[in-house]
Structures are given as structure tokens and as C-alpha cells.
């Protein structure tokens, strides 16, 4: 007998504190699997956000930085500049990355920082009690859009992957989902590519992962995955928005 599926080595034994059915856990696992596959646990440094995944450093058996809300890409920039030979990745929620951290992610991408960003879009502020995020769909009820997000007064959801794809510095940008096993497998591939790029010295890579928040969506976990498929994917189409065009540059090479 061989194990065809087991707990990745890069995860600690600590149980996740996430709510039942929250897909943050799946995404953590995919990152850990990727790090295991690449054999880079000892040379990878993670940067975590403020959000439900704030404790990611307890779950991953890696060196980690706990960054201030929204600033993980700037922290990762500091880390990567000191350790250009290490793999540096960032894990951020949509409030963290797409609201308060907009400037930091845009400019990390524009600079082509050689980091990998895992961007968990669950269309809500999970940790603080289900407030509207920049990614909240129009009409969606949250604690700060109790009558449903009103496009006229509260604006339209930001499509982060599309926005960042306009930047020359962004080498790889993809949107995936984890609402069913097939998509989980695709998500894993995208995450793998995003790490591969960094190791090849290619610039900034970001994978946007559509994720559920059963608690704040007020849905059973299974309903939540359906809701994601039915409502989020139409507005947030899946796919690769940008793939590296030029052959990978050797670190430090300058045009």
C-alpha cells in the first residue's frame, strides 16, 4: 500500500482554527503540498496577513512573518531583497489585499518582485465579523451592507487578477477556485506554477483563489461551495490572465 494522499510535511500537527467547511484549510494544504513537492521547506519564508488566516504561521512548518493588515507584499519585498535566493510567499485575504493593501500589492506587482502571492478571495471580511469587502458581490448582504451591496453607493466589486494583469511587472496571474475536487486540482497546478516562476527568477506571481466563508455567508459549507460556483465564478471568471512570456531571467540579470 502506498499513500496517495496524506498530510503534507510542511503542515504542523496543529488543527486549523477555521470554522467547519472553511476552504482556507484547503488552500493552506495546497501551499504546503507545493512546498513539499519542490522540497523547499527549509528555504521558504512565508508572510501572513491579518484576517482569518492570521495564524497561518502556526500551521506551516516554515519561517514566517506576521505582517500588518494589508502590508504583507511590502514585508515580503523586504524579506526577498535580503534573501533573493530564498522562496518568499505571501498569503492574504481579500480585505487585506484588495482593500487596505491595494497600494502594496499593486506596487509589488509593478516592481515585479519575485514573490508568490496566494490571494484568498471569499468576498467578505471573515475575521472581523462579515463586513463588506471590495470583492463582495453586488446585492450580497453583509454586516456593513445589510440591505445588500448597493452598486450605486458602495461600488462594484474589484477584479484583482484582471487589474494586476495590466501591470508589466506581473508575470503570472491566475484565478482558481476550491469549491470542488476538480477545481482543487486546478488550483494546485496554478499554485505550483506560481512557485515555479519564482524559483526560475521570473517576476511577480499571484494566484487568486475563490474561497468560501460559510460562517459569514450564513450558509452550510456545502451550500457555500454551490453559492461560490453559481455566484462568484460568473463575476470572477477562472483562468490564467497572464503567463510569463519571456524565458526566465537569471536573478540579477539586467537589461
Amino acid at each position, binding site marked *: 500500500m502506498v499513500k496517495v494522499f496524506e498530510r503534507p510535511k510542511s503542515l504542523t500537527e496543529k488543527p486549523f482554527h477555521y470554522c467547519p467547511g472553511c476552504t482556507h484549510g484547503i488552500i493552506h494544504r495546497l501551499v504546503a503540498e507545493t512546498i513539499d513537492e519542490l522540497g523547499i521547506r527549509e528555504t521558504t519564508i512565508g508572510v501572513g496577513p491579518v484576517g482569518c488566516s492570521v495564524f497561518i504561521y502556526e500551521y506551516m512548518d516554515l519561517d514566517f512573518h506576521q505582517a500588518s493588515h494589508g*502590508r504583507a507584499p511590502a514585508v515580503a519585498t523586504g524579506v526577498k531583497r535580503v*534573501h533573493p535566493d530564498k522562496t518568499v510567499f505571501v498569503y492574504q485575504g481579500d480585505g487585506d489585499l484588495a482593500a487596505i493593501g491595494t497600494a502594496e500589492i499593486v506596487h509589488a506587482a509593478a516592481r515585479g518582485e519575485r514573490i508568490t502571492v496566494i490571494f484568498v478571495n471569499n468576498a467578505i471580511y471573515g475575521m472581523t465579523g462579515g463586513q463588506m469587502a471590495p470583492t463582495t458581490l453586488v446585492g450580497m448582504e453583509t454586516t456593513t451592507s445589510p440591505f445588500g451591496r448597493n452598486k450605486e453607493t458602495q461600488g462594484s466589486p474589484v477584479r484583482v487578477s484582471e487589474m494586476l494583469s495590466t501591470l508589466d511587472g506581473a508575470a503570472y496571474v491566475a484565478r482558481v477556485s476550491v469549491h470542488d475536487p476538480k477545481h482543487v486540482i486546478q488550483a494546485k497546478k496554478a499554485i505550483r506554477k506560481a512557485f515555479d516562476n519564482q524559483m526560475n527568477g521570473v517576476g511577480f506571481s499571484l494566484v487568486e483563489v475563490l474561497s468560501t466563508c460559510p460562517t459569514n455567508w450564513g450558509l452550510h459549507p456545502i451550500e457555500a461551495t454551490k453559492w461560490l460556483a453559481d455566484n462568484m465564478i460568473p463575476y470572477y471568471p477562472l483562468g490564467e490572465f497572464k503567463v510569463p512570456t519571456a524565458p526566465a531571467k537569471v536573478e540579477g540579470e539586467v537589461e
Partner: protein
Amino acid sequence: MAKILMKGNEAVGEAAVMAGCRYFFGYPITPQSELPHYMVKRLAEVGGVFLQAESEIGAVNMSFGAAGSGARVMTSSSSPGISLKQEGISYLAGAELPVVIVNIMRGGPGLGNIQPTQSDYFQATKGGGHGDYNLIVLAPASVQEIVDLTIDAFDLADKYRNPVMILGDGVLGQMMEPVEIREVQVNVPEKTWATTGAKGRKPNLINSLYIVAERCEEHNLRLQAKFKQMAKDNIRYEDYLADDAEILLVAYGTSARIAKGAIDRAREQGIKVGLVRPISLWPFPYEHLAEVAQKVKSVLVVEMSAGQMIEDVRLALNGSKPVDFYGRLGGMLPVTSEILREIEKLAKGGRSNG
């Protein structure tokens, strides 16, 4: 050792490089721009990294990442930019990261102007960010001292794993004086706590989150013990003609330089006046000041602000002496002759009303 003539802002940069700093993260703002302009070239020479961030918030958080990765790091700005860094500074203190932060103060509040002031004293010494923490705050008064204190700042930051601030103003940043460029023995302590990849050891974590209040209190008590030690070991000041003084001036940085000019003139008139110049604003030389002040009749605090350090002076004297104040605001400099007039008033037994 060769002396060269340098601008204060450039001297900060050169001293940082002498101290082994190879990472600079900043965002443009007057009147500190000569520092990044110098650093971008100088760091290229020594193989360091100069990075202009998208904002001051970006810069302080890049510094967080680089310092947590084990590097000697500097970030620099001026008043409004330093205000923007307050959350980041609180994080640096909470996560115990050694970063040297430079504030070349300018006029406020708000956009104010770009003229020299000392009106960020409270922000620097009492904590402009949230939570209980302290920075070591060093206030040079000459270009040579900028060099010396900047070098020390890196050592202190590493020694205590705590951010250290160099607090200057536009006059200090822009003026030129001779400085000795000496060989510095760079001794960076081993940073076993830094994130370098968890190879053959447990993972390292750079963190300020302690979600359980009991743990957070423990963390804070540990920090407070460290701050106490920092305060004990790092009091710095200069006495100028203070021995026989009957009138004692207290001033730091640029206003201390100008105050010295006034003291020289008062001494010519035979008025016994001296100065205590705090060099470390945190820790503040409370005890030394109390001691020196014992022998004097009156105390005059001179600041380029509405009166901020004066609170620390009053805390030091604890009611033992009257404390007067002369200050200029919004980017105006104290004037030697006006300080002299205040001194004369005090010499005649009156109170200054600066």
C-alpha cells in the same frame, strides 16, 4: 583620520553604510531628500539595496521584512511621513525588530511647511503609535554627532532588538560641517531569531500578535523590562558651562546649538548661564538634569515647538525649580538675541515669558 565636509543628511547615509547598513527603504519628502539621493548611489557602490517604496507605509513595512530577515536596515522620512509610519513603528516595537528610523522634522501640523522644527518630540518619545512601547531617540546637534549617533543607533537597535530613531531637523539635515570618516568595526550580533529558512532548526517567527491576553501581558512585561534596561544604559547628554551656572538652559539639536550661541554672549556679559543638552531624548536624562538643576536659580527650556520636551524637564525637576520656556513655531528658528533677552530677564530675577 581624514575630515571631510558633509551635509547632515548625507552624513546619516554615510554613517549608516559605515555601520554596515545595506538596506534602505524610503519615500521622497523634503527636507530629508539628500539622504535617499546619497544612499541610492552609495549603496550601489557597496552592493546594498536602495528601494524607493510606494509610500512611507510601504517603506516601513519593507524595513520590517528586511530587519526580520536579519539585515541592518534604515528608513527615513520627515514629519507627515513619520506619522504614516506609526502603525508600522508599533509593529516593529512589538515584533522587536532593529530598524533605524530617521525623522528630519519639518513644520506642522498637517502639510505645514518644509522648514526645520522640533515639534515631533512627543510623537518620537511618548509613542505616536498604539500600545506601550519605546524607541531609543537620539538627537544629534552637529554633523559629526549625526555620524556618531547613527553608527551607535545600529548597534543599539541590534543590541536591544528595538527600533531606534534619529531625530533631526532641516537645519541639521542641510548644513555642512567637517566630519571624521573613521573605520568602524562592524559587530552585528548573530541573529538566530531571523527568518532565513528553517533549515536544521525550528521555524523562526517574526510576530507581534498575542491573541490570549495573558500571553500578551507577559510579552508586554518582557518588553517593559527591556525598556527599563534600555533606559538605564543609554542616557546621553552634554553639559555646556553648566558647572557654575545659575541659569540653566535645556535644549536639544538645533535649538541647543543656537542656545549655546546665546550662552556665549550672556557669559560675555558675565551672566552665569549653562546648558544641559539631552542627546538621548528617550531615555531622557531625568536624574542628571535634576542634579544639575539643584544648584541653579532658574531653568529655561528652548524648543522649536510649542513646548514638548518641557514636560520631561518638569518631570525631571519635579517642582524643585521654576521652568520657563522660549519656543518658536512652524519652522521659525529661535534667535540668539531673543534667547539672550530671556536669559537677561531671568538673570534680573524675573520670569521669562517666551
